[in-house]
């Protein structure tokens, strides 16, 4: 198996003012699973866009050799035509069409524009069998889970006679079981001789399946590791990604814990859409002044739902239970009331739920507390600008000015704008939902530093995160959630990846 199916030689791609790729070389052998890793902004997606023809030949320097020939793709269909198929993180399926219609979308089995449904369904069935799906081809996409949707995407790739399959963060939104199924499928394909490139942040998964790992950093190739020659540890990969040892990933903090600020008792919530299904069961927890409290759990454990149902009942219905601040019951039935009670919620989805992207830093910063910069409903421009400039400096938001539109900021800086907005409401307890998702390592460190400062000021922090090392590195206490219940409460000393996973697994057996 020594033949190289793909070789990208000295690829350089510049955007106005930025060199996104600088002399990147990348070699993939036929029949291997090749992982591409790196921080956000390292150039992984750009490299794949060059490969698939999203950036056409001529807009970059360097050469692409595929199956022994120099290729110059002008469009995506050029690359698809010879078997290079890319599956993006955001799935490109039409929710209200069937599986069969989606698989053959734009590529219909038809004669003179009339679709041959019989053949479409028959072939879809074959394709679905190959990816291990038993759903009837007429099932609507919206009726199957994300894990199965991912498999439909792969079936769609198979229908296009794929030779080189590129998966961009395929497991980012999948739970453990679905991820495993997907990875097994990739290994199955490898046996059949198919080549895959997988972009992922989940290093444990990469270790499981990859034959080779290529690490990108700041638009350049750092190294390619061969998983068969040596045992590659996660720390080894991270070292390559950040260019230094990651012992100091979390800034140190001396906790000074005070009185109990937020306490939630017997919190029961029914599902927002499936209205007869109870989603959260008797959730109890508290957060104290100066304390950083984590909530660990798998995707779908009910962590975000807990936070949002407390924050002005913005999720779920038939919500019962009590919320106390400083031991006194408070009304959190609407978002303004929750804000008045001293709560702030930094959402996990900052682009859709956190920011008005078409608006600038200035206006986003003051949005939740406009009253504080206005009198009798009239905004005091100078005061507002002063506030926004203040936060921009304090949180080190990298931007031209406070007038820069937030859509043009990097993920880390966008998150800082969302944080500014909530800090300006002067909350006592901040609920941070995946505060570092999609942010590169450097910016993560800054966010942790901000969290530490807030704790030092005596605020309570409730942090939801899917990255266990992050929770272990920053929290004083960790609650573990599973299937809508709090299943464990671990002190800093007790908490470890193993103890958290054990708590989740045990609770799964009980129910």
């Amino acid at each position: 198996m020594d033949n190289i199916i793909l070789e990208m030689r000295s690829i350089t791609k510049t955007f106005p003012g930025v060199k996104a790729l600088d002399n990147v070389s990348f070699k993939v052998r036929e029949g291997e699973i090749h992982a591409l890793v790196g921080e956000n902004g390292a150039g992984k997606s750009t490299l794949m866009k060059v490969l698939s023809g999203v950036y056409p030949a001529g807009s970059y320097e360097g050469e692409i050799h595929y199956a022994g020939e120099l290729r110059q793709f002008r469009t995506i269909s050029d690359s698809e035509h010879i078997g290079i198929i890319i599956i993006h993180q955001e799935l490109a399926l039409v929710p209200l069409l069937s599986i069969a219609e989606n698989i053959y979308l734009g590529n219909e089995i038809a004669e003179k524009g009339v679709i041959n449904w019989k053949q479409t369904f028959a072939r879809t069935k074959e394709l679905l069998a190959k990816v291990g799906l038993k759903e009837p081809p007429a099932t609507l996409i919206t009726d199957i889970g994300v894990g199965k949707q991912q498999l439909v995407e792969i079936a769609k790739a198979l229908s296009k006679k794929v030779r080189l399959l590129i998966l961009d963060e395929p497991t980012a939104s999948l739970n453990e079981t679905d991820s495993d199924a997907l990875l097994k499928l990739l290994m199955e394909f490898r046996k059949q001789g198919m080549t895959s490139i997988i972009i992922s942040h989940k290093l444990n998964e990469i270790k499981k399946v990859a034959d080779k790992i290529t690490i990108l950093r700041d638009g350049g190739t750092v190294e390619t590791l061969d998983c068969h020659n040596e045992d590659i540890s996660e720390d080894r990969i991270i070292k390559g990604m950040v260019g230094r040892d990651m012992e100091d990933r979390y800034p140190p903090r001396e906790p000074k814990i005070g009185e109990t600020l937020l306490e939630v008792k017997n919190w029961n919530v029914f599902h927002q859409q499936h209205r007869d299904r109870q989603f959260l069961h008797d959730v109890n927890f508290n957060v104290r002044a100066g304390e950083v409290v984590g909530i660990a759990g798998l995707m779908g454990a009910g962590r975000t739902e807990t936070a949002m149902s407390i924050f002005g009942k913005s999720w779920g219905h038939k919500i019962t239970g009590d919320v106390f601040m400083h031991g006194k019951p408070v009304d959190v039935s609407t978002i303004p009331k929750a804000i008045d009670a001293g709560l702030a919620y930094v959402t996990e989805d900052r682009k859709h739920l956190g920011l008005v992207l078409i608006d600038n830093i200035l206006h986003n910063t003051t949005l939740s507390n406009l009253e504080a910069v206005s009198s009798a409903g009239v905004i005091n421009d100078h005061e507002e600008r002063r506030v926004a400039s203040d936060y921009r400096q304090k949180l080190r938001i990298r931007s031209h000015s406070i007038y820069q539109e937030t859509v043009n900021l990097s993920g880390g800086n966008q998150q800082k704008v969302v944080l500014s907005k909530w800090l300006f409401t002067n909350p006592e307890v901040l609920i941070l939902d995946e505060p570092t998702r999609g942010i590169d390592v450097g910016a993560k460190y800054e966010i942790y530093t901000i969290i530490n400062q807030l704790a030092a000021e005596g605020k309570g922090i409730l942090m939801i995160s899917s990255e266990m090392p992050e929770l272990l590195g920053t929290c004083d206490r960790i609650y573990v959630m599973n299937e809508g219940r709090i299943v464990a409460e671990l002190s800093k000393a007790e908490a470890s990846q193993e103890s958290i996973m054990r708590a989740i697994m045990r609770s799964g057996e009980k129910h």
Partner: protein
Amino acid sequence: MVTETTTQSTQSIGEYLRANIREYGLLVALVVIMVFFQVLTGGVLFRPVNLTNLILQNSFIVIMALGMLLIIVAGHIDLSVGSIVAFTGGLSAIMLVKWGIHFSIVVPLCLVLGGLVGAAQGYWVAYQKIPAFIVTLAGMLVFRGLTYLILENRPIGPFPKDFQSLSTGFVPDFLSFINPMPETITNLFSLVVVVVLVVLAVYYGLKNRAENDRHGTENEPFAFFAAQMGIIAVVAIFLGYQLSTYKGFPNVLVVMGLLIALYTFVTTRSTIGRRIYAMGGNEKAAKLSGINTERLTFYTFVNMGVLAALAGMIIAARLNSATPKAGVGFELDVIAACFIGGASASGGVGKITGAVIGAFIMGVMNNGMSIMGLGIDYQQLVKGLVLLAAVFFDVYNKNKG
């Protein structure tokens, strides 16, 4: 990687122009269109009588565009304004002509009724989450139907003189006793008011710049400011002079001017305005930021209803009769004015000044083509193309930037 730039760069005039091309482009377009028709109509366009007519003919479009802009910025649309115009016009006619109620009661009452009509539609949009397009399409049919019903298919008129003056009257010349040239200037007051306003505009512009300097906020280049003020002053004083040689300010011009000032203030300086923009830009984020988006949506529709009612009465008074066919197709002119003025169909973007200029661009084209004797056929055709061109200009700029 992102580099830190804390120093605020001073923009050159070219950069400034490029960054603000939309607003200046619009103003330039209006001036070009006016000059174009001035030439084509052989100088009729700028005649005092015609200028007065232009204002009278377009006031109601401008007034409704103010409310429509808020609705479009909020991310909705209102197709029913033409029907509300007819409905409230009809109601006012019944009360004034048939029942003989004094206009000082009828006018506020009709504004309240317009607000109720807006509320009736806003409820479905805001609280039942039915798309505004559908709700107001239904409203357009319902209120047109109701107008036919209450008017029994017949026009009602004429109106009492005092009510008519609401729309057709002029501000009297309070300064006639010191008029130096009574032969040419027939209404000195209006000219004086224009000059005073121009002086005030320059004064506050300079004051604002000084304040910005003090707070370290960037100003537009001074040459630009001066040129802008100069042009505005010349144009305003010229128009004011023209009006003063006829009958002075029409009453509706005063109403319109005050409303434009009020809505500009609301959209740029008030918390309500800011929240409407935020809601249109990202409704979910606005809601999670503690903004009561339902109530805000509801009130934008109530506001639209009130403005449409005002427009309805102005039109009825101007035509001196309320007819069931009043206001047919006005919603399209009003919506077009907003989009020509740079509002975004997806919400969150748009300015009052843009919508007002957009309305006048439409108005001048209507007026100019009418003077030239072009039929309704050509007028519609040209207006449609101008709308498309204006929006294309926006899209083109966006893609380039």
